[in-house]
């Protein structure tokens, strides 16, 4: 979401309103675009407002334990009576700790980026500079096709093909031969888990990152690459030292877009993550769970909670996901600004 803002902002900066002639149609356009820009803020604000308002009883009931406890228990729906804290009640035995899900969300998304960013940059650069011209349209079409495949299709493939392969081939092989490395040893598990989630997520975000970075590189004039080559650098040096730094803003925007996708992906992850509850993975093959996956898988039961606290706590989970996305965007922009300042560019 915020990565979209960066792109909108860039365009706005490029075309200064003062430079435009003020004609009648121009005024109408200015008002309309202004309203549209305002609407994007208003919509985000309204979503956040209603989410927080709906989650408020859960925020009070759960307190800080929400972020520190790893026990998620909607309580006994068939029990008698209710328990209450801070003036709000829940089913007996209820305890809403999101630590397992927050951990799963951040770790799967972060590991996905570790795998996907270098690969995507290399694919994007090669699509622009090294892939033969004749094959390029086919390769580009394939990338766009991959970006357009619905996530549930990736999930199904993951469940039917990838997970059994990890469970019966990859995981036993890795744990036997590389078990001495931390987080690679121990039980091989069933194949459902962190590794499968990261694999599927990487498959989903790589095409998005390739398509966006490729377009940013293409938008940059070819002169940088050519000048760098003329000065005697190898094509690798020209790409990594001249081209990439010049399109850094666009690359960061595309990374943020992909990160957002990885954080929020629901169905495909739910189908391969092993839906861990109350436990952390013992190694990279262990089951995990993400906020998005747990919201969709627990909603059904939450609906039968007469006290309503299970639904409110799911809304609090949604707020946390919102917050995580926001923090990551702010941090990424901060890093960008810092880098720009160091190099004496205008932020």
């Amino acid at each position, binding site marked *: 979401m915020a990565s979209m803002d960066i792109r909108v902002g860039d365009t706005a900066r490029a075309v200064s309103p003062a430079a435009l002639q003020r004609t009648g149609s121009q005024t109408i356009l200015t008002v309309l675009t202004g309203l549209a820009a305002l609407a994007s803020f208003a919509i985000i604000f309204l979503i956040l407002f209603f989410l927080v308002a709906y989650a408020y009883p859960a925020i009070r009931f759960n307190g800080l334990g929400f972020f520190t406890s790893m026990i998620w228990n909607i309580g006994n729906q068939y029990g008698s009576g209710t328990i209450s804290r801070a003036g709000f009640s829940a089913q007996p035995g209820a*305890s809403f700790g999101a630590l397992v899900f927050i951990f799963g969300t951040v770790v799967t998304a972060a590991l996905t980026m570790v795998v996907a960013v270098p690969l995507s940059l290399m694919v994007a650069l090669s699509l622009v500079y090294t892939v033969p011209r004749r094959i390029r349209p086919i390769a580009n079409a394939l990338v766009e096709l991959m970006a357009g495949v619905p996530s549930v299709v990736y999930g199904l493939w993951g469940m039917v093909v990838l997970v059994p392969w990890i469970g019966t081939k990859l995981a036993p092989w890795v744990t036997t031969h590389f078990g001495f490395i931390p987080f690679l040893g121990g039980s091989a598990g069933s194949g459902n888990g962190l590794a499968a989630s990261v694999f599927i997520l990487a498959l989903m975000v790589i095409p998005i990152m390739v398509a966006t970075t490729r377009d940013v590189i293409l938008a940059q004039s070819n002169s940088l690459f050519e000048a760098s080559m003329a000065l005697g650098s190898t094509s690798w040096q020209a790409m990594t030292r001249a081209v990439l730094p010049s399109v850094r803003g666009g690359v960061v925007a595309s990374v943020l877009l992909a990160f957002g996708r990885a954080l929020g992906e629901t169905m495909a992850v739910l189908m391969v993550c092993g*839906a861990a509850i109350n436990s952390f993975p013992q190694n990279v093959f262990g089951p995990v769970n993400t906020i998005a996956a747990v919201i969709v898988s627990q909603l*059904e039961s939450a609906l039968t909670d007469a006290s309503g606290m299970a639904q409110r706590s799911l809304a609090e989970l949604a707020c946390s996901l919102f917050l995580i996305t926001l923090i990551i965007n702010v941090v990424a922009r901060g890093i960008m600004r810092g880098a720009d300042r160091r190099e004496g560019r205008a932020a």
Partner: protein
Amino acid sequence: MRKTLALAFAALLAAGLLGGGKALAGTSLLETGSTLVYPLMNLWVADYQRAHGDVQITTQGTGSGTGISQAISGVAQIGASDAYMADAQMKNSPMLNIPLAISAQQINYNIPGLNAKHLNLSGPVLAGIYSGAIKFWDDKQIAEMNKGVKLPHNQIVPIHRADGSGDTFIFSQYLSFSTPSWSHGPGYGTTISWPSVSTAVGATGNPGMVQTCQNTPNSIAYIGVSFLDETNKAHLGYAALKNRSGRFVLPTASTIHAAASSLTSKTPSDERISLIFAPGAESYPIINYEYAIVNPQQGDAAKGAELKKFLTWALASNGGQQAKFLNAVHFLPLPEKIVKLSKAQIAKIK
């Protein structure tokens, strides 16, 4: 706010349904909920509508929780559920819980070389497996009840439902009723807080359970009897379970029937009762009523009348209870006395 939202949503949906329904028929009914009941509903509705062209019935497999909440909000006229409503929910919104048929659940496993055999398992052993106390297939407690079977020293992978499910409800009830430590610990519900077991895996829906169990050697799973054809196709083994009398019984028509009849006389007039761990030497321990959750105050007289007609047909021995419908999903018909109780409940619909 929840009520207003639900009302607004209901109004929107009703407007859509009426708009669409007008072209087709006079009255429209919506059934939504349990995915175990969904295939049966489709068979029922297809047959019923051939004779009753004036009513349009739409079916949806959305899950029991959704079925209950949409029956309460008025979006749906029939909410199908594997579980009866809890007291706390009934207090907020009194609904009729009308049994439609009897279902059961099998305990499936995938142990290379042993799937053709029926292992003997008990509630406490299953509780041990799902709480991580029993880690290997050749554990002393499993070996004790399976003399002569060569059990492998492989780590057990317990698979549970990740989504809310009536299957989790009846499975965890079996563990709760047979094992005090489970009843004081995780307890039972459509979603429970599963004990932390490092090999445990969550799967979504019964198809996901079948798939994961089939793909994972040494796994164990609980799967609704409607999926018997699928589990057979996947060559999964299924267990004989220890019942209240201490006997190990397989899920067959006669053991499911035995369990149902042993609790027929105990079924109260509101029919909210668990059939789990029923008494009787021949009783299979994990069976349940499949319910239609219905609001007794329908508001719309025409809808109420059509709803009563359809539910009455569903309970008739020459209607919905015929073997040609129930056998397709391996459900059993309701005992005569339960049909009577259900009819008395249907009469309350206005």
